[in-house]
């Protein structure tokens, strides 16, 4: 039993770097919204000592562009495709799910319920999942924010509403200041924090959710090595996604897969998945 390795949504464009996408077990699109979006004004990224901030703001072609251009091009590459879906209301999310429902070129729908860089929908995550569940039979994964009081409560609610799996975790909102001007380095002021600093947060969230619900969990947050991936699996992940590391090392998919096998073997596990949940007692 191997552990699939994916990209975190927004951390790879398969059409500009197909060789990277083809090294993954499936490709997750950048979050798609009902209408095209220009995204936020620059400056959009800022490195910090232990991570990076981004405030891209869901730049993308909208669902029409995805369906007309992106999905056919991804199919031509022979990729298995997960589509990340965003929006500003239940109606937004549900309408996109309805458009994707019958498509054979979409394997899974991941609901981005937690982008820290745009206005949030007024409804709860569970209400959005329920609205989408009614309009698609595709597997639905709910991507949750780590910035909640008790993420296991959110997990239970979205699973009860029909989510088939969880994606844990999204970036967490942060800010970086220019040391001279003491003004925010990002044009929008704040952004989503990712990279090595996110791993302990991801581990805690994955562990809490794995204890609360029995569904597949796509773990992500600060994975840069096979050992990082094994730790997320030990906390309860059954799939691992690579995010910020892809920016620094586009060869990471093959490397992390190789290291993951070696790290699991070194600890006496027949395969990486055999270590799933061992952190949770």
């Amino acid at each position: 039993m191997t552990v699939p390795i994916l990209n975190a949504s927004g951390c790879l464009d398969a059409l500009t770097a197909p060789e990277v996408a083809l090294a993954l077990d499936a490709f997750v699109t950048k979050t798609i919204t009902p209408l095209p979006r220009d995204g936020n004004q620059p400056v959009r990224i800022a490195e910090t000592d232990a991570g990076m901030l981004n405030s891209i703001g869901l730049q993308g072609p909208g669902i029409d562009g995805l369906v007309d251009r992106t999905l056919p091009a991804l199919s031509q590459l022979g990729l298995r495709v997960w589509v990340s879906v965003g929006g500003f209301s239940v109606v937004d999310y549900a309408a996109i799910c309805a458009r994707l429902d019958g498509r054979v070129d979409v394997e899974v729908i991941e609901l981005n319920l937690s982008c820290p860089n745009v206005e949030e929908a007024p409804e709860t995550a569970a209400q959005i999942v329920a609205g989408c569940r009614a309009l698609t039979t595709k597997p639905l994964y709910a991507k949750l924010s780590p910035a909640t009081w008790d993420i296991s409560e959110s997990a239970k609610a979205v699973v009860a509403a029909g989510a088939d799996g969880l994606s844990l975790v999204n970036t967490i909102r942060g800010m970086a200041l220019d040391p001279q001007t003491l003004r925010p380095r990002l044009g929008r002021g704040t952004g989503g924090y990712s990279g090595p600093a996110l791993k302990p947060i991801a581990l805690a969230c994955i562990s809490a959710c794995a204890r609360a619900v029995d569904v597949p969990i796509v773990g992500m947050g600060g994975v840069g090595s096979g050992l990082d991936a094994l730790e997320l699996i030990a906390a309860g992940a059954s799939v691992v996604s690579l995010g910020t590391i892809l920016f620094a090392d586009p060869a990471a998919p093959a490397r992390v897969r190789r290291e993951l096998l070696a790290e699991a073997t070194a600890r006496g596990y027949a395969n990486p998945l055999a270590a799933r949940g061992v952190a949770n007692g």
Partner: protein
Amino acid sequence: MRTERLAVRGNETVGPYALVRLARGGLDPGQPGQFFMLEAPGRVLPRPFSLCLAGTGELAFLVDPVGHGTRAISALARGDAIRVTGPLGHGFDLSVRRPLLVGGGIGVAPFPYLSRALGGPPALLGFRTAHHAEAASLVPNAEVVLDPTLVTEALPDDPGDVLACGPEPMLDAVRQLAPHAQLAWEAPMACGFGACYGCVVEVEGRLQRLCIAGPVLRAA
């Protein structure tokens, strides 16, 4: 685009800059004006650099140590190795009849490689100080102006085919005087290959990724 760990062959001081020479490995040097992402030891993200020189079996980059990442790269020594990805983006269009290279400060970086590809055309380089201007020694046929003189003040009336690299205000000024110039821009970027959407600039009224659309763009 390929990613490899490359050994550091040498690191020489050129004025305030570091000329970091790496063993080329299996990486292609690409076209002048294309760039590479260099690992900055101890930092989360790599940094973009256009290729400065492509000596036999080597890739060399001119680094201005102004921040955490560039300081880490300029401190590399023989025996170190860093992860390098490239070549990336679109470089200069070399089908020009009367090339003139126009650069400001660290914008001189792609010109040694570009100059060789074009057979040593004239170059006009502006620097803050004589110390910075030591980098002009890397470019044949270079005329140097120092602050407060601007390169745009020294541009001939009919500058020919301008290929420019430098700070944004300089590129904006060059664009006014030479509407057909090729301008090499820079922007903060996390990846360099279209993944992060961090490096967008406005091109033809739309925010586009500089790493894909550029970094060399037509002025008009």
